[in-house]
């Protein structure tokens, strides 16, 4: 029974981390309607940039700031340089262009850092293990629970409870009308795309003490993020959290019975959601 509770708790922690990682994808898709296949690459860029700052300054806080800032800058350049031309294009064009950008970003990272993986030591305040009953759990992973929850809450308020979010959603519906009201929609879109990219970079830094950095790691997280977003409902913030927790619990609990099938069960769950509730558990029907 103690194993069951241990895995249940681990599922929650893993799930919130997955929700945090999917945040950038949710922001950009939920507000701008762009399926950002470069999400995984932005996650990698943030992770490596954070690693570099951490190595130079020995400060994990500065690493978080540096990794997020570099991802934000890349996101802004992406939006101004290319994505702006693609808002009104079909989804397949958006997928292709973001996929192309992700290949370029990953290869730049590989060119700069090589193929060898980098281990990031948790900050001083995250080192050691915590004992929760019979469960021994890494302290840093426990702390990421709080970090993920706080970040998700903050982003939710910024994008859904402020006038910024309102402008963005109105702009998606009718950009011309919003422009006519004297609001610079283009600048707002740029800001939202940047926030989405920054969220991916932020997650990359937060995750780096848990999983070693490799240039290709982003693809795996892109897939996981899609599973979370599809289960929870595309563009829904509460959905990303629910989807993340469900994904985490599936991975954790099924590994108790048969670890070989835990990943497969994740995709089975996604397929079931797509069949029974295509818009996802918390998604709105008919939203594009």
């Amino acid at each position, binding site marked *: 029974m103690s194993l069951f509770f241990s895995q249940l708790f681990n599922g929650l922690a893993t799930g919130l981390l997955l929700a945090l990682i999917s945040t950038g994808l949710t922001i950009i898709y939920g507000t701008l309607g762009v399926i950002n296949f470069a999400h995984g690459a932005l996650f990698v860029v943030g992770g490596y940039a954070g690693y570099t700052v951490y190595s130079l300054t020995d400060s994990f806080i500065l690493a978080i700031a540096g990794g997020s800032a570099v991802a934000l800058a890349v996101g802004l350049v992406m939006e101004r340089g290319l994505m702006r031309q693609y808002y009104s294009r079909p989804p397949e064009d958006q997928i292709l262009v973001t996929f192309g950008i992700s290949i370029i970003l990953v290869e730049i990272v590989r060119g700069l850092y090589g193929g060898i993986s980098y281990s990031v030591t948790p900050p001083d305040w995250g080192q050691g293990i915590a004992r929760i009953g019979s469960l021994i759990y890494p302290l840093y992973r426990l702390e990421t629970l709080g970090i993920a929850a706080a970040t998700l809450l903050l982003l939710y308020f910024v994008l859904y409870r402020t006038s910024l979010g309102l402008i963005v959603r109105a702009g998606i519906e009718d950009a011309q009308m919003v422009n006519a009201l004297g609001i610079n929609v283009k600048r707002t879109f740029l800001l939202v795309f940047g926030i989405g990219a920054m969220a991916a970079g932020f997650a990359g830094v937060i995750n780096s003490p848990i999983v070693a950095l490799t240039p290709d790691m982003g693809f795996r997280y892109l897939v996981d993020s899609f599973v979370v977003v599809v289960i929870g409902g595309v563009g829904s913030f509460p959905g990303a959290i629910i989807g993340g927790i469900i994904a985490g619990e599936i991975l954790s609990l099924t590994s108790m019975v048969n670890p*070989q099938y835990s990943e497969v069960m994740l995709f089975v769950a996604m397929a079931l959601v797509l069949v029974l509730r295509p818009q996802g558990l918390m998604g709105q029907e008919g939203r594009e």
Partner: protein
Amino acid sequence: MKDRKTSAQALNPMIGRRSVLKAGAAGVAGGLLLPATARVAMAQDKKPLGAWPAGSDGDTVYVGLTVDLTGPYSAQGAEQQKGYELAAEHLNNGDPILQKISPNLKKGILGKGIKLGVADAETKPNTSVQAATRYIHDNKALMVSGSTSSAVAIALEKVCNREHTPYFTAISGSNETTGVDCQRYGFRPCYFAYMACKAIAPVAAKALGKDCRAAYLTPDYTYGHTTTESMVEFTEKEGWKTVTNQVHPLGAKDYSSYLINIANTDANVLVCVAYGADAVNAIKQAKQFGLLDKMKLVIPYSSAYIEVEVGSELIEGALVAQGFWWTMEAQYPVAKDFVAAYEKKFGGKPRDSALYGYLAIMAWAAAVERAGSFYPPDVVKALEDGSVLEIPVGPFNIRPEDHQGVINFPIMRGKKKSEMKNPDDWYDIIEIVQGKEVVPPLGLLGCKMGDYV
């Protein structure tokens, strides 16, 4: 148009004088246009096979490399590429090391230069098969090499066998590569799961005791399953018990649920079968979960650069098998030359991935020289003749029955940081395993070779 005849007419003995003259002229012209090698081939009654004879017509011969430059084994793939490049440079320049490796080796291969093509296999069988097919059909490659994943190696040896083109693995740990999936045109120079586990089990039992309880982390494909199977077999013979086997997908990032399962057992040894970036994440997270504070770490088939990737704190005390370690230069003179040449060209010390890339080219080149031809069946027969090469890990030959390399490799223990004499001094070599003592008995792994043609 009047001279055109049907095949029946052509067979008619009453053939006109003009037709005979035309046919004769066409024959002479055709003969002159045929490449020299093709004429030799026809003279010897050898039909074209694979990219032969077209691939051997020019001043250079093409070798197609399928290395994992992306995916969980990309660090090893990049290292393999360096080994191939070094071998090509040595052959093209006629480096003095060639004569130390084999008296057959000289500048070029049968006087021809060697040209390398590099493709990213992405750690995926389908990508590597597409690359190999392109090499053979478009680039007229006479040899294909490269792998880190055994799934890739097995797929490649099958496609190269069908194309009658010699294929050499770089890294492939699965028992099946030269076992049930062995191919006439497939060769594995490197050590593999059975050899590694047979060698490391008694060393581990001596170092850690006979009553250990082992927990396994196994990647879910042919390499993982066969390595765990062999390790369980040989450690249980030493008295160990197998407590749990956690099977994870290739390329997994989060091992927390597997590690919690292991923490819930009374295991005192963690056997990490995971390889490359997977092993790095598994070991790193095992430390975070406190497992390595109470368990010993054994890596029966460890990957190049793992010590750099996880750091001295985690590799300290770990028992590992690896294909090559640079301090073997103290035992083998060729190792000294190899390490020096690698350092000069690339900087840093070479790892086993580079050695296996280097060895693949050298073994093929020496066989071509012995065969006196690039004709694939002759090259395969030369590889099967038992000739010994002196390589950086000592004497090496290929078993004709299953095309497994009989090769030495070290078993090592990770050093404490305070004991490292220089930044590359990561391991103490406990034992250099003699390959001939740990290769499986012939027939044990189910190899059945096909025909040459």
